[in-house]
């Protein structure tokens, strides 16, 4: 199965980068000099992205302007899931999260990843006006609230 353009957007950074590439291509369409589109596609767009764009334009009927405009609007309208992690995620983790999001919530959602070592592990998630603290710190504090006093009693503090 050939990748779609939306498949290469996992994070907010990816979104910004793709929007810059799409904007450059759209701008090249209004240049009068010959070969400007090709030049921009080769110099300002990542090869794997350029490959997808070219293929999708052909599939969409070779209307570059329409494709780019629709694609820019669609990318801009993607929803953002803010996720806080205790460490910088590997590419593998980001891919896993993205896959999980598509399966669980559908397409058109990108990640804004923040790093906060204090959460120890797990993740804090904010999406669509909702928030969930699934951090290891929160779990630890919940456990401490429940069993901390009992734990301290072992040291005759209770």
């Amino acid at each position, binding site marked *: 199965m050939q990748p779609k353009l939306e498949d290469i957007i996992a994070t907010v950074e990816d979104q910004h980068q793709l929007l810059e590439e799409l904007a450059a291509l759209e701008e090249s369409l209004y240049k009068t000099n010959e070969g400007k589109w090709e030049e921009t596609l080769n110099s300002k767009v990542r090869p794997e992205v350029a490959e997808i764009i070219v293929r999708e334009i052909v599939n969409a009927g070779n209307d570059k302007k329409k494709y780019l405009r629709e694609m820019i609007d669609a990318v801009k309208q993607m929803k953002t899931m803010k*996720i806080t*992690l*205790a*460490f910088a*995620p*590997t590419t*593998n*983790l980001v891919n*896993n*999260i993205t896959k*999980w*999001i598509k399966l*669980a*919530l559908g397409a058109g959602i990108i990640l804004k990843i923040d790093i906060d*070592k*204090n959460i*120890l*592990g*797990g*993740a*804090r*998630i904010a*999406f*669509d006006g*909702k928030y*969930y603290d*699934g*951090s*290891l*710190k929160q779990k*630890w*504090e919940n456990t*401490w609230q429940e069993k*901390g*006093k009992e734990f*301290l009693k072992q040291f005759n*503090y*209770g």
Partner: protein
Amino acid sequence: MSIELIGIIILSVVLGVVLAAYERLIRKLDKYQREQEIIDAQSKQRAAKIVEAAKEKALAILENTKIDAKESQEDIDKKLEQITNKQMDYYKELLQSISENIKDDAKKVLEQQATGAQNTVIQKIEDDYSEAKKQVEAYKQEQMKQIDARSGEIIKEFTRLALGKAMPEELKQALVMEALEEAKKTYAA
């Protein structure tokens, strides 16, 4: 006889009458004066007698009065002495009674005061003990909180260091994915 002579004769007669009347008046006055003198002398004598009698009487009265006064004074002294003795006895008894009452009252007062003081001291000790107990309990609670907080921080820090450095990559990712699943369940709920 001439009128002048007649006049002289009349005048002479009148003069003689007047002179005679005057003489009689003079004599009468002398008589009155002597009688007055006699009366005055008699009066003086009588007065002197009266005064003398009165004096004697007064002396007698005075003498009697002295005697009576002396007797009265002795009586009074006796009576006063008796009264005084009685009063003294009464006062002694009264004083003794008062003294005993005072002793009793003082004893009671002292006992009451001692009891009151004892109760006050006991109450004060109990209050102080209660206050000290509260302070100890508050201190204990505060220490407990500090220990709780510090223990939590220490363990958290240890956990962070241990997990952050030693947690395998698979576990880190698993915890993230687990958080996503939990979030999904929470949103769904």
